[in-house]
């Protein structure tokens, strides 16, 4: 699958999550999309995005399976470490009185970044291929 399209969908997932955090789906459509389902579906695209990056490394076919397994274990350990820190910081942030105002702005900024990533990748699809 084309790496630009995959990365554009990853940008879309950022926009999706920002709107989800802002409660836009509840306000606009009156229902909350299943977070687990959305995580799974977008997770497939994020995984595909990682896979296109590994392909760029031209890993030797010798010992491919151990290399792939090691890469994925590394990715998971990295994610758990990052999430542990993020969870602590978010816990404190939630308790601050300005949380809702700041989180609203943060999610709008995040949505904008998602749009930028989408535009960057969609343009790349047309310019670079």
């Amino acid at each position, binding site marked *: 699958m084309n790496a630009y399209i995959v990365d554009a969908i990853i940008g879309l997932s950022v926009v999706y999550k*920002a*709107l*989800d*955090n*802002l*409660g*836009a*789906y*509840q*306000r*606009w459509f009156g229902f*909350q999309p299943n*977070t687990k389902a959305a995580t799974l579906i977008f997770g497939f695209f994020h995984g595909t995005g990682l896979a296109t990056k590994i392909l760029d490394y031209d890993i030797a076919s010798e010992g491919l399976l151990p290399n792939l397994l090691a890469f994925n274990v590394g990715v998971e350990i990295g994610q758990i470490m990052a999430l542990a820190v993020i969870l602590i910081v978010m816990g404190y942030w939630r308790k601050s009185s300005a949380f*809702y105002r700041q*989180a*609203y702005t943060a*999610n*709008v*900024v995040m*949505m*904008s*970044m*998602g*749009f*930028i990533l989408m*535009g*960057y990748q969609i*343009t*790349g699809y047309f*310019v*670079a291929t």
Partner: protein
Amino acid sequence: MFNAEKPSLEDLPSSAHLLRSTVIAGVSAVAILVTVVLPAEYGVDPTRIGGVLGLTEMGEIKNQLAEEAEMDRQMEAANDDQSSLLNDIFGLFVGAAHAQEQEVWQDMLTFTLAPDASAEIKMEMTDGAIADYAWVAEGGRINFDLHAHGGGQSIDYDRGRGATSGEGSIEAAFDGDHGWFWRNRDSADVTVTLQLRGAYGEVVETY
């Protein structure tokens, strides 16, 4: 934020507020894309603001490097396919051009590249051999990549863009072809004069 537990409807931001935020996010994204991201990544600069900020040149360099890497890859693949006989024939042509020698230099090569044209000049060297070089470009500026490959190994000694002269020496890191990939990215013909001396075998050139 609002999706953790089911909030009551009046706790949610209003529809107009959400819509306004989305539009602000979208409009600022387009503005940043057009003025910063696209110039810096692809050299695409419809507003000319990227050029003023110096980002367009960054994108153009990225495009150029990607193209040259692709060219180099294709050229290496093509070189691997070529028989050594063909290289010997090229070697003969270069050998014939050896007539104009200078006192200190063993070989002097002159070639002219039209805009966008490229050339590959290689010295056959054995592991540890040392060769000195000096070159000048006339008529414009040139991009070069001084590298080597052979026996499945490859190494990059030096590379540059928009250069008009260079000199130095290389010590072969392994047996193989050591030399330059040249590309004229200027708008006019560029003539390169390359002088060589040291411990190398044949000089091979491919255009």
